[in-house]
């Protein structure tokens, strides 16, 4: 392996290890369960830790206070945290950090990077889109874990540019809806005028940031799939029925083999996309790489998770048993930053026909 690759592999290994502080390798659903369905649905203390570990600024330039690492490290991190079901809104926070670094606003960026303030970007006006319309008076929907936000970043279309406003959460018109995994989606009816205009045009940065968020979400899906599949394998190896270990039934063995293939394909697609981005892919090629990975993660992800439930039989349908938590989280992230269908269409529109 070349020295550069070796160095990167080492940096990814370190990131994975560090994730254990929040999401222990053996799994610990107690913390996660305790946070469910009780606003804001996550632990601000743990969010603070994430800042201390340098995760929120993982991909932010060192000059701006970040760690200056790449997308490969970011997906390794989101994978590990999802495997541990951490409910903290790290991916949205990383998106906000990218915007603030782009806007060069240290007054908001520094506390966000430190994990002392939760800053979420309220960009989305309808379901299943990556397009930022920026209508000043349109409600912003599906803001993950919005109940815990201190500040919202609201992009607003102004002429040819997409200006960015920072709106304090306190006093904002925010409604929350419970999500399957015990968290909350927020709908924000913001008056940008209440906030501070911090950038004149974040269009390009937001566009790139949403792609990275999509890819990190695909990485999170890999983490969910991997852990749920591990639990399923363990179950197949111990559970008896009709006097036999159920993992000896060939129909279940072959199903497990198929899930493993989908898991391997998803991981390969996601890691290949991250490597492409880190290698400097730009424009259509960058978007196509992301869409290829996110389409696979959306489709194979839910498929694998629901089959894990099926392979568990009745117990998989109980809330008490952890495997269901993975499906529930999977439902929340499957279509976040674009459904499989959206990314499939985008891939076909952008990828050169003979891309290899």
């Amino acid at each position, binding site marked *: 392996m070349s020295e550069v690759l070796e160095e990167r592999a080492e940096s990814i290994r370190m990131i994975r290890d560090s994730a254990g502080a929040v999401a222990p390798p053996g799994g610990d659903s107690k913390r996660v369960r305790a946070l469910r369905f009780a606003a804001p649905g996550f632990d601000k203390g743990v969010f603070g830790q994430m800042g201390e570990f340098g995760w929120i600024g993982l991909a932010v330039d060192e000059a701006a206070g970040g760690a200056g690492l790449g997308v490969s490290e970011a997906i390794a991190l989101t994978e590990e945290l999802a495997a541990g079901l951490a409910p903290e809104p790290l991916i949205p926070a990383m998106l906000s950090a990218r915007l603030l670094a782009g806007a060069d606003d240290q007054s908001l960026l520094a506390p966000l990077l430190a994990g002392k303030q939760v800053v979420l970007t309220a960009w*989305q006006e*309808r*379901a*299943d*889109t990556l397009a930022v319309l920026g209508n000043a008076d349109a409600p912003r*929907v*599906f803001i993950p874990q919005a109940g815990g936000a201190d500040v919202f970043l609201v992009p607003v279309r102004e002429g040819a540019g997409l200006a960015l406003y920072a709106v304090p959460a306190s006093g904002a018109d925010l409604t929350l*809806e*419970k*999500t*399957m*995994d015990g968290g909350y*989606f927020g709908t924000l009816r913001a008056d940008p005028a209440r906030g501070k205009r911090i950038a004149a045009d974040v269009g390009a940065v937001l566009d790139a940031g949403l792609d990275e968020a999509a890819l990190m979400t695909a990485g999170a899906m890999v983490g969910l799939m991997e852990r749920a599949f591990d639990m399923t394998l363990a179950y197949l190896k111990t559970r008896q*029925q*009709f*006097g036999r270990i159920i993992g000896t*039934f060939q*129909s*279940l063995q072959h199903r497990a083999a198929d899930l493993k293939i989908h898991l391997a394909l998803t991981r390969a697609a996601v890691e290949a996309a991250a490597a492409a981005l880190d290698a400097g892919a730009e424009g259509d090629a960058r978007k196509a790489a992301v869409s290829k990975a996110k389409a696979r993660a959306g489709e194979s992800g*839910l498929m694998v998770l*629901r089959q894990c*439930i*099926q392979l568990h*039989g*009745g117990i*998989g*349908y*109980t*809330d*008490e048993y952890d495997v*269901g938590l993975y*499906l*529930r989280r999977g*439902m*929340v*992230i*499957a*279509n*976040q930053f674009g*459904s*499989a*269908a959206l990314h499939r269409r985008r891939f076909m529109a952008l990828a050169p026909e003979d891309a290899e």
Partner: protein
Amino acid sequence: MIEARETQDLNLLEDEAFRLHVRAWIEAEYPAELRNPPKRLHWDENKPWYFKLAEKGWLCPGWPREFGGLGLSPAKQIIFTEEVERHGCARTNDHGIVIAGSDLAALRTEAVLDGDTYVVNGQKIWTTLAMDANWCFLLVRTDKNAKKQEGISFLLVDMNTPGITVKPIINLEYHDEFCEVFFDNVRVPAANLVGTPNRGWDMAKALLSFERIYLGSPRLSAYAFSRLKQLADRMGVWEDAVFQDTYAKLRLDLEDLKSLYGVFVDKVRRGETLGPDVSMLKVFQTELFQRITDTMLEICGENAGLLDPMEGNRNLNPTGLYIQARPATIYGGSNEIQRNIISKNVLALPG
């Protein structure tokens, strides 16, 4: 338990007259606001309807009159079920006998005769809504030495008897539909034995043969399909030819399921006994139900993550239906078991 039973022998009515009789009764008695409930109703919501069914003998219409049923023919039961489903009535509990194909060898409840009383010990899971039930039908092992389906008896147990503990199990719908019931030296009068001792499985099988076609009824898929249509309206995906094609395939699957269901219903109407091939319906129906709800999640964007119905509209409930569809392939004999039945008892494959 049963007070004002239907007095006439409804088997004597012509099918159409019977259908109208049932329909009129349901329309008069079933609360309109409970039609097509978004999740399984709780006991306090469903109790009035349950009592009305019980009063008239409709809870187990196929059971002999001496056991509280109406002795209804299979053909008439199908009509009754069709009308209940057409009207969107809530499901009542399944009388604790949803154990078709489950692991009887491992039946973990046993009863020992002590004078004129059975002493019951053990536990039972998945008893639907057990925490609300007053009585439950219980399959117990009464002969430890007999194997598998033999040595099992059918008991009617008052849930208020001392020694019974009910522990609700929260399921993925985040709703305590299922329970674990523990029996610790529970004393049940021998008079509560239903049928012949040690032949309980024969009786359960007879009841379950109707359940098997019931589990294969296209109604659940048809209901989900109608909700898919409403969701598609809401999400504005009709312009998308790809969605249209997915929708077309699901619709044709549903239509063909109806055709195949019709073949079995005709057999029932003709008084024929259904063979193990009825398992085909259960497999296809439950997996179609899941595919329909999979499609819902695919088209609804981030709404795929919501716990509750969208916009407070219970007809826009993709995640609720998605979760409800999951156990369909597990309960009533998992689809793996159904495929074993088809391969061994229908196709006569060895081993």
